[in-house]
């Protein structure tokens, strides 16, 4: 077990190393010139050359790379090319916002999605099954930012029940929660629809297994069949879903932050792209990659507790 975690962590670092390297060279060879992005298209050639030199962009590429990588290994992600402040500091400043959004989005996704999928499978082909299937289909048919947009129009603008814009004051719980509710709901509903549909399919598949028929044949009550046989086995599939869709929710959070004007890593990334802020972009992508890889490792470890048939050596 410890060895498996160690190997996975090692693989994760290797993967992140590859990603960062590819990003580093890709952006510098193909991206916008930050000196031009900062000064605008009316800047003179001299001022651009001066800025390039002072940003360290004139050094040979490999030298910039070695400097950046040693920085990353010691926890220094460099300074933003746009405003000169340390990248790590700016990311850590907004990270709680993004974490709130994705974490509660996932919680809502699981809490809403799993029971819906379960109900839909047990009551298959009844009225409620149809309602759930149509509802989840509608939700799947919208990118998360559109769900966010609709919630914004209905609950924040038409009924003024929630604040329209911003992330609220992170130190005051009520403000933090009221600003979080709609964005997290949007993300949660998007994820819940997927989880509900896949839960339904996996439970239907479990229900067609022989041991379920055996259990019913020997007179086990339907309630016990569901809780002890079906639910226990379905957890493995559900945990996989949580792993897959936490990645989806990270992706969805970028656009949702934009809809609600919430500060967050996604907003930093979008700003960094339009301004040619390489270092900020790289820093943010490192955070995303680390988050997604860590979730995957946690999911793999959880398997061993849920399903005794899975053992890592």
């Amino acid at each position, binding site marked *: 077990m410890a060895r498996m975690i160690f190997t996975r962590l090692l693989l994760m670092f290797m*993967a992140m190393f*590859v*990603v960062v390297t590819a*990003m580093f060279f*890709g*952006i510098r060879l*193909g*991206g*916008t010139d930050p000196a031009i992005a900062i000064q605008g298209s009316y800047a003179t050639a001299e001022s651009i050359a001066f800025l390039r030199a002072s940003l360290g962009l004139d050094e040979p590429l490999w030298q910039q790379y070695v400097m950046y990588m040693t920085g990353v290994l010691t926890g220094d992600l460099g300074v933003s090319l746009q405003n000169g402040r340390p990248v790590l500091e700016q990311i850590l400043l907004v990270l709680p916002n993004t974490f709130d959004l994705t974490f509660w989005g996932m919680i809502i996704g699981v809490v809403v999605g799993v029971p819906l999928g379960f109900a839909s499978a047990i009551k*298959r*082909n009844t009225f409620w099954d149809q309602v759930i299937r149509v509802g989840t*289909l*509608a939700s*799947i*048919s*919208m*990118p*998360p*930012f*559109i769900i966010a*947009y*609709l919630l*914004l*129009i209905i609950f924040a*603008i038409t009924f003024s029940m929630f604040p329209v814009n911003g992330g609220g004051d992170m130190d005051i719980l009520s403000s933090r929660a009221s600003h979080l509710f709609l964005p997290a709901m949007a993300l949660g509903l998007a994820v819940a629809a997927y989880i509900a549909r896949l839960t339904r*399919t996996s439970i*239907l*598949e479990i*229900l*067609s297994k022989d041991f379920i028929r055996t259990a019913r044949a020997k007179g086990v009550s339907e309630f016990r069949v569901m809780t002890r046989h079906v639910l226990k086995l379905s957890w493995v599939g559900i945990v996989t879903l949580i792993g897959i869709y936490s*990645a*989806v929710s*990270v*992706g*969805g959070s*970028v*656009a949702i932050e*934009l*809809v609600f004007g919430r500060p967050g890593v996604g907003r930093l*990334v*979008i700003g*960094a*792209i*339009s301004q040619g802020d390489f270092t900020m*972009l790289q820093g943010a*992508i490192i955070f*995303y*990659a680390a988050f*997604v*890889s860590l979730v*995957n490792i946690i999911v793999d470890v959880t398997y061993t507790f849920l399903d005794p048939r899975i053992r890592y050596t």
Partner: protein
Amino acid sequence: MISSQNLNYDVPAPKSGLLALPIKFYKRVRSLPMSGQIGVLILIFVLGTALIGPLLVPHDPVSQSLINRNKGFSAEHWFGTDAFGRDVFSRLVVGTRHTILLTSSALLLSAGLGILIGLVAAYNRSNWVDSLICWTMDILLTFPMVIMGVVVVAILGQGTLNVGIAIAVAFLPRMVRMSRGVALTLVTSEFVEAARAIGASPSRIVIRHLLPNVMIEMSSISTLWLATAIKTETSLSFLGLGVQPPTPSWGLMVREGLSTLYINAWPSLLPVIAIFITIIGLNLVVDGTQDSLNPHTKDH
């Protein structure tokens, strides 16, 4: 000696005439459940709009008019005007072509590349080439679709073409995995064995023997991903990474409409509805075809 006539297998001759294909299509569609048929109708409508709509729009989608800003619905401007006085209906129709064309060509590009890489991986299943390809694809796969798109756009710069490439790259690992999976079942089959025995080169086996078989499987699988691709495209253009203003696209229209939500919500609400209808049409078709094919979910 077998003459060529004796090899004439009993293939029904295709009905000649212009109507043969539409009739076949119609019969296939009628065999879907009701929801699937509605989905097909929606898709035909959206495709028709994308193909001929831009030729028929009443106004230039980018021409601005200061006195006509944020107008409601009227006979002149069917869906009103946006914050720059541009005709929302025309923008919506032109945006349809943009989204459909971009996502489907991106998927085609992705499928083409992905199938080839997947085949190479499957053919080299016992050596380092396969391991390398699988490992690379696993890394790419951990990134959420939108984040992948953002990274590619960051490297290539903003713009329509680059968003297309971004979508293609985002789908690449999925395509590779699928085609590798399909090809793996074929690689050990007898016709490949036979081809190898008569001395066909690896490239010939991959291109002439494996590719046609994998193509059939992959063409239906790729269609399943069209909905996801449209969601990714609209998300990216909503983030302002795709087509640049004033050219209309659905995602960008939502973004531009956000700032005038209190005054006039229609310029952003209508593209939202368009995105929703298109994707739900696709999902209905996919659901319908899967339900009639999958023995597990069929009679439950």
